[in-house]
């Protein structure tokens, strides 16, 4: 039984990692927390749903399209909104993304109603036996997809020139600009990657999850917790804490009251961050 629950936690953890990835990159390069990240995820799921209803494409098939769409949306959000608050106060930056969150929820509610919807006849369904645990096939596919996407993005950041530039801006904005790195381009890139990440996650999740305007909201909150727990701006930190939170949520929900599973997640974060304010992998800021 434990294996079953443990695997469930790991599967959820990989999704959390992917959703948090864009968030932590954005925070790393420009110090902004995107509170609308969860609503980007809802948007991706609706995009997959539209492709499914209109063109009869399975979410797994339309995934590249959704990723492109969300990446473009990330760029748009940066161009139209974020770019204009780069020098504004922290509160202004937070409120821009809050406004975006409310705006997106409104748009989705208006366009798709508040009803719960689902993709019909998904490509992958049923269960699968793995290490003695019976797991939902689409969730396994989603976790695997999330892991692959995470690895690709990690390789991009650590092995390519553009990725290094992104890291350089994250380390020290002023020094990076002295080295000829155009910081604003890197900001935009972070938003594009952020959009692409939730694009992947949304497509994968559309395969098995109900879709409604606020479906992404809890994921958005959890992702912020993941990023803060892992240490703002740290990709390995987000990986460890994403898995950890997935595990705590599922395992805790199984052995305690399911109603209290988030209590454990937030409690864990709270206790941890008070003891170690900079998070798992974060650097201490003065």
């Amino acid at each position, binding site marked *: 039984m434990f294996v079953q629950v443990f695997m469930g936690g790991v599967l959820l953890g990989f999704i959390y990692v992917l959703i948090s990835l864009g968030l932590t990159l954005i925070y790393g390069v420009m110090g902004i927390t995107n509170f609308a990240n969860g609503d980007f995820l809802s948007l991706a799921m609706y995009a997959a749903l539209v492709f499914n209803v209109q063109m009869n494409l399975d979410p797994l098939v339309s995934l590249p399209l959704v990723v492109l769409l969300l990446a473009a949306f990330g760029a748009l959000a940066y161009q139209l909104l974020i770019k204009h608050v780069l020098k504004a106060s922290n*509160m202004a930056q937070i409120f821009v993304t809050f406004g975006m969150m409310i705006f997106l929820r409104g748009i989705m509610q208006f366009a798709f109603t508040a009803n719960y919807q689902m993709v019909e006849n998904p490509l992958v369904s049923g269960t699968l036996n793995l290490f003695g645990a019976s797991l939902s096939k689409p969730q396994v596919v989603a976790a695997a997809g999330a892991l692959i996407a995470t690895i690709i993005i990690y390789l991009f950041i650590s092995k390519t020139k553009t990725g290094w530039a992104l890291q350089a801006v994250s380390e020290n904005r002023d020094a990076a600009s002295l080295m000829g790195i155009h910081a604003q381009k890197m900001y935009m890139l972070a938003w594009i990657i952020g959009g692409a990440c939730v694009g992947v996650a949304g497509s994968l999740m559309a395969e098995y999850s109900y879709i409604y305007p606020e479906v992404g909201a809890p994921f958005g909150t959890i992702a*912020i917790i993941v990023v803060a727990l892992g240490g703002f701006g740290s990709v390995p930190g987000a990986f460890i804490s994403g898995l950890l939170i997935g595990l705590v949520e599922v395992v805790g929900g199984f052995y305690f009251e399911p109603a209290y599973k988030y209590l454990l997640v937030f409690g864990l974060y709270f206790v941890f961050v008070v003891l170690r304010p900079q998070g798992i992998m974060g650097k201490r800021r003065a």
Partner: protein
Amino acid sequence: MDKKTIQVKSLFRPAIIVPAAVVLVLCLLPQFIKGYPLHTLTLIILYAALGSAWNWLGGFAGQASLAHAVFFGLGAYINSMLQVHFEVNPWVAMLVAMAGVGIISILVGLPVFRLSGPYFSIATIAIGEVVKIIFINWKATGGAVGMYLPIRESSLLNFQFNDKAPYYYIILAFYFVAVSITYWLKNSRSGYYFRAIKEDPQAAKALGINIVQSKLLAMVLSGMMCAMVGSFYVNFTLYIDPDNVFRFMTSVQIALIAVLGGVGSVWGPLIGSVIILLLSEGSRAYLGGIGAGLDFVIYGLMIMLIAIFQPNGIIGAVENYRKKKRLKKRQMQEATDAAKEVGDHGAA
């Protein structure tokens, strides 16, 4: 000019006239509006009081909390539990709720104030979620269903009235308490200390400021004010449930009202509250019928526009204008200073 005219003049300064006019108008408004508009007005004042409370901690001391709905909701819950389970008088229950929330804010503040910037704000989000989950699952508070207050005879002592106007005057009185505290903060050592901490905690320490103590004071004041308003709220609606009072969006709205009005200003939260509530209530009333969600679209759009174009709030914009005027004067003065200095050196 003799002494008398100076005194009269100083009485008619804009700094006195404008607030006096605002107070007068607020007191007289129920003579002209009734029913739903008065209900909305009551909520506007209610949020202005909450925004003021946020302002002490977020605006003065620079600790941007995203969990003020927790203080508000806890105040409301403690008040209604005392009334429902122990038949305590609502006013006594209010005092107990304020004391209780005051203690809770110290217990919460001690660990959370070790965090700064986004870590602080996110820890407050976590606290908000934890409290909401507890109240949704707690039987004594009616769980997710919530609880109703017993209906009593209309009287001030019972905190229940057949008419809306008394409610309005009570929350207005509460709001004036909040305004007085803001005035006091602006002109007291504690207020200066809060601002110093916001600007630079390291330098503040060097000047003998006990940072934790100051932050706790801001938090306790803020929490107790919210509990007071929360107590009003539950007696006003006679019903409470976790989703209603502990909503994350309520916390966001409280912060938004303070920031939009003008961080650290006395009347800013009132301006912010008028705009935000008219916007959200208005778009709900006029657009809610056309299609669910459009109200949120407008509301969200307005928030984004405000954050981009008016990040210092309305009062902040006015102050910026004054600053520009001062700067011009200053440049002229500096030019004369420089000329003088050259003259001095020449002489030496």
